[in-house]
């Protein structure tokens, strides 16, 4: 980790810094399914009074795919270590870490690794465990069978990606517009990385890590979120001491896209 140079960390995670230099930093971390473009309707609103940082997890968006290490990125801890690298490289402290979906837990892990860097956390649609736990009655929203089916069906889309688009680009060097289209499109992910990321996102159990969160935390819970149901958000709220729970009217799993005003307002009000 320490051998990574400034240039390579910035390039590795396609780190983008905007807003007010010297102001309190806000770091936005995208969740499963897309890349940092997801924050385009929310992050700019904080630029006036914050230093705004967005980035892509390795394997997503414009990140350096060659930096993907199956060992390191075989668990959420590796992604959290990447986050710590970014914070260290930019030398950020008292960061407001805004994590969507699985990145909320990546933030929890990053905070445990570098507690001096993160001063507040906003969790958008968090879940500490997606699989129900029959032993202690925890409701994550998915049975094992449902999650098996989910991962299978996600695979179908990852396969479509790799079999339809990649060969077209690879096999047509004389048609640069195909590659250009691919580069210009959002939410591009390496299908293999996306598949693995889906696995570690949905199969991790970070409930025990919640107790380590000792900074002000805001839990933003969407309505009718099939990925992170209210029970999961409530659980996070109840297990992060002193956290604030806000129920959004926004439906689905991406309130920062479907209801950016409401999402921004909730964050701003809490800050």
């Amino acid at each position, binding site marked *: 980790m320490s051998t990574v140079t400034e240039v390579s960390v910035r390039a590795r995670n396609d780190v983008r810094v905007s807003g007010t230099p010297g102001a309190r930093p806000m770091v936005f971390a995208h*969740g*499963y*399914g*897309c890349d940092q*473009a*997801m924050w*385009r*309707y929310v992050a700019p609103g904080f630029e006036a009074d914050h230093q705004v940082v967005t980035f892509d997890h390795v394997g997503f968006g414009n990140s350096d795919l060659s930096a993907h290490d199956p060992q390191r990125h*075989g*668990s959420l801890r590796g992604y959290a270590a990447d986050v710590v690298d970014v914070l260290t490289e930019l030398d950020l402290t008292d960061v407001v870490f805004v994590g969507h*979906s699985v990145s909320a837990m990546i933030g929890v892990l990053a905070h445990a690794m570098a507690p001096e860097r993160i001063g507040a956390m906003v969790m958008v649609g968090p879940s500490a*465990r997606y*699989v129900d736990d029959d032993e202690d009655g925890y409701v994550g929203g*998915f049975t*094992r*069978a*449902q*999650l*098996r*089916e*989910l*991962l*299978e*069906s*996600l*695979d*179908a*889309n990852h*396969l*479509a990606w790799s*079999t*339809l688009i990649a060969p077209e680009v690879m096999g047509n060097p004389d048609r640069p517009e195909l590659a250009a289209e691919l580069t210009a*499109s*959002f*939410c591009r992910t390496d299908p293999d990385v996306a598949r693995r990321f889906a*696995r*570690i996102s949905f*199969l*991790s*159990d970070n409930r025990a890590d919640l107790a380590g969160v000792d900074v002000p935390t805001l839990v933003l819970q969407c309505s009718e*979120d*099939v*990925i992170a149901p209210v029970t999961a958000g409530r659980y996070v709220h109840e297990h992060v001491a002193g956290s604030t729970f806000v129920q959004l009217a926004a*439906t*689905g*799993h*991406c309130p920062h*896209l*479907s209801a950016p005003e409401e999402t921004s307002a909730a964050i701003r009000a809490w800050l």
Partner: protein
Amino acid sequence: MTDSRETAAPPVAREHRLDDGVREALDQLLDDDPADLYENAPCGYLSMLADGTIVKVNRTLCSWLGMPAERVLRTRLRDLLSLGGQVFHDAHLTPLLRMQGAAREVALDVVRADGSLLPCLVNAVEVRDAHERPLIVRATLFEASARRRYELDLLAAQRAAEASEVRSRTLQRFVSDLAAAVATEDAAQVVVHRSRQAVRATGAALWLVAVDAARPDVTEPAAVLTASEKVPAALLEALDQTSPGRVDLVLSSGVRTVPVTERLGEAWPALAAAAAEARVTDLVVVPVTADGAHLGALLLTLGDELDGDLISLAEPTAHRSLATADVDLLCTLGRQAGQALERARLHEETARQAERSGFLLDAARMLARATGVTESVERLAEMVVPRLADLCVLDLIGEHGLARVVARHGDPARQRFVDALRAWAPPHRDLPAPARTALAEGRTRWFTTIDEAQLAAMARGAEEVAAARALELVSLVAVPLIAEGRTLGVMTLAVDRRRRPFTSADVELAEQLGLQVALMMAKAQRYELEARTSHTLQATLLPPPPPPVPGVTVAVRYLAATSGVEIGGDFYDVAPLPGGHVAIAVGDVVGHDITAAATMGQLRSVYRALLVEAPAPAAVIDRLQASWPLLGLQRMATALFATLDLPSGVLHVASAGHPPPLLVAEGRAGFLPVVPSRMLGAPPAPAVEWRGVVPPGATLVLFTDGLVESRTSDIDAGLERLRAAADRAAANGPDELCDRLLADLAGTHRADDIALLALTRDP
């Protein structure tokens, strides 16, 4: 993907010769086209508000769904999707539409009214107002059943290819890791670790058969747990007690999967209980073979499938069956493991052989240096533990019968258990069974394992059983110590469970060691006998302290050489003669062994016999020379004979090849110029007698050459050193003079004996 071009160039524009009737019908159809095309298009259409509510849907989609339009309207697209579809819709499709206004070829499964799934590919566009706010989302759905099947086949083929690649990588890594492992333990660790990874087993353990081809008759071969990973101790113990510990299972061929079921519980209740406790659903046994020989068994436990620290998706109690390819892989791993383990064993055996040779050499060197039996065996025990064994006991037959001379444990913490066994050892009690039998029958007793029954048979009481159990002894060998046809004792070696049991090579080493010890003991016993004999002889042969003689004060000293027997061929003699005379003699028989001592004894006796006639010193030499052949004395000798007339101090001295006497008078020392004749035993020649006077208060010093000889200088230098020492001595009386001369001249390492006699004439 050519539809757009088709609509841009209407086919009717071309010149076709068509029937008027057909043209009319076609025109009618094309007039109705927009509505008809929407409702009955060969794909599903729907339109949604920004919040996802469906506000328009075509007939095609309704019929695919098996639902009337009224039911579809005012639901949301995500509500029509399977769970996976919902997640992908929320996490991917919606963000894409918001960000780039369109999404292409998203694979989603729609749930029909009857619950069946309809695989679809969805294309969607987001229509926005002038302020880029979303107004409506239009989506087309294409049925993709055949394509999805094809994709799934493709996916399955890709997975199979990946799995096959993973297996081949696993095998490669397995082989290369094994190649790097030199020791059996390392190889075993690789086998356990890699095979566990290969089939994602929850745990793995390897038992190896402790076969000793050289001594198959001694005990049955046992399977020894050599390595394990993530198998709970209770399960390992249960396995040890049941199948894998037994040879029959090891010898079974092929990979076998044993489900943890009630049936297993009937046969092996403890095993089934331990497996259930460890949440193991199946046990897989893989034979480990090399060139057809069964070396052991690899056991894998299947259960809640582990995937790093991720949650397992398998139902906790579901039995897992291994894929055929995995079974084949395990077979190959078993064979590879066998070959590597065999190689490691050979390598270790070679190394061990070299170590044994070194050990025997060290032992031989140590025993060669040693002088006493007790010291030797104690130092031997220090070598044996921990190099060869954990426990070393030596019971030796001595003068007073059998005694436990050494009982040493390599682990200081366990020495107290060994000490506790002292009470049960000779001479208090008889030996334990293995040592007793070895001693009685004169043959080695070897136990590769010690089970409870054997322990009970070996031990002589509950306390002994308890101590032996505390020592955790697993293997034992008792070697009789036999040399020159005599049994001298028994050496018992044992190892505890932290070390592997004794092999035949270990036993051979112990036997060779036993032979060395026995030879050393025999040699030491002979030496001791010789020493005792020579002590007795010396006590007999050495002259008694000189009797008090009026008119003179006499002091004598006898120092044996520091190596060899403690007696030599030197002697002194002081005998008062009738008529106020005293006869003095000092002699030195060549050599300092038993023969020299015996010759000296004879010489002194003959001399004493001659004294009856009070011959002059020269006559003593002449007579001894004359009778030498008759006496049959085997060694030559030098001697100095003198008579002193006590009242006058007149001294007669004659020398047979002996250093001259020293006279110390008035603080000055000087040698008397006695001319030596030939040595006793050499061809005779007439002896020359010297005559002089010893003044009152003067001291006459007679000595043997041990006092003046040295390895570094000649005898003249030695004589001068003696004279100078006597000059300096300024002693008060002959006793003090003797002490001072010896202190000055006799070193701590003497190659020869010294006899010294000092006689002071009373002033």
